C-alpha cells in the first residue's frame, strides 16, 4: 500500500538537506514529499505496528533525553496538552502516540534542519494510558513515555 522505506528515506534526506538537490535534478518536488500522509502508521491498531510503519524498524531505544510534558491527570480526555522536546542531536522526526487509543498514532512532525526538536499539540485520549514520544535521529529511533490518567466524570448519565 505504502512504501514505508522509501518514505523514511525521503524524510531522512529532506532533513539532511538533500531533497533540494533531488528536486533540482527533477527527481521529485519537495511539496510532494512532504504532502504524503503515512496511512499505514495512522491506521495501525497497535503501538508496535504504528512505530514500525512510521520508522521502518521496531528496534527502538528508550531515552532520557526526551522530555514529554503532559498532565498526570487529564481533566478532559478530549483535550490533553502534550509537548515533546529532545536534546538528542539531529532529530528529523517526532511522533506522539496514545497507547490506549484505538489508533495509537496521533501526530508526527517531520522537522527541517533548523527546526528545534520541541513541538506541542493537544490530543484526544479515550482512556488512561501512556503517551509515547518517538524521536527519530539519524537511523536511530528513541522513545519515552508518560502515563496520563484520563478523568472519569463523576456525575453519571
Amino acid at each position, binding site marked *: 500500500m505504502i512504501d514505508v522505506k522509501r518514505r523514511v528515506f525521503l524524510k531522512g534526506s529532506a532533513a539532511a538537506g538533500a531533497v533540494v538537490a533531488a528536486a533540482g535534478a527533477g527527481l521529485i518536488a519537495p511539496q510532494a514529499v512532504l504532502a504524503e500522509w503515512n496511512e499505514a502508521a495512522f491506521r495501525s491498531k497497535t503501538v508496535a505496528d504504528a512505530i514500525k510503519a512510521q520508522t521502518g524498524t521496531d528496534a527502538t531505544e528508550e531515552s532520557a533525553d526526551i522530555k514529554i510534558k503532559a498532565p498526570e491527570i487529564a481533566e478532559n480526555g478530549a483535550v490533553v496538552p502534550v509537548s515533546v522536546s529532545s536534546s538528542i542531536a539531529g532529530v528529523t522526526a517526532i511522533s506522539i502516540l496514545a497507547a490506549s487509543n484505538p489508533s495509537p498514532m496521533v501526530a508526527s512532525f517531520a522537522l527541517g534542519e533548523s527546526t528545534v526538536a520541541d513541538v506541542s499539540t493537544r490530543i484526544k485520549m479515550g482512556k488512561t494510558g501512556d503517551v509515547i514520544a518517538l524521536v527519530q535521529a539519524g537511523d536511530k529511533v528513541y522513545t519515552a513515555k508518560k502515563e496520563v490518567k484520563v*478523568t472519569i466524570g463523576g456525575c453519571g*448519565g
Partner: protein
Amino acid sequence: MRKPAKLTAIAASFAAVLAVSLVPVSSMAEGAKETIAMGKKVAYDRKLGNCLACHMMDDGVSPGDLGPPLVAMKTRFPDPAKLRAQLEDPMAANANTMMPPFGKHNILTDDQLDAVIEYLYTL
C-alpha cells in the same frame, strides 16, 4: 438478562423462607453469587448507583472522596435495616448529607437496592 437477576435478588433476600420452595437447595450459593454480582454492577454503573463517584470501594478505579470508603460494612452496619434506610433516604439521618436518596427518589428499584446491599456486605 435482567429478569433472572431480579428473580435471584428476590430469592436472596427471602432466602430463608422462600428459596427452599422456589429454588433447589443446590443452586443457592449460585443464586447468592449472582445477586452479589448484580449488586456490584448496579453500584458501579454510572447511570445507576454510581457509588464510585463518592466512595472508594472494592476494585473500583479512580473513586471520589465525598463519602467514606465502603469497607467493613458488616461492622459499620450490623443492622441491615439501617443500611437499607441509609440508601433509601440518607437525609433522614443527616440533613446535610450529599448522598442522593436512592430509594425515595427512585434512582434504584427495590430489587436493585437489595442486590446492592447484598454486595455491600461482602466489602
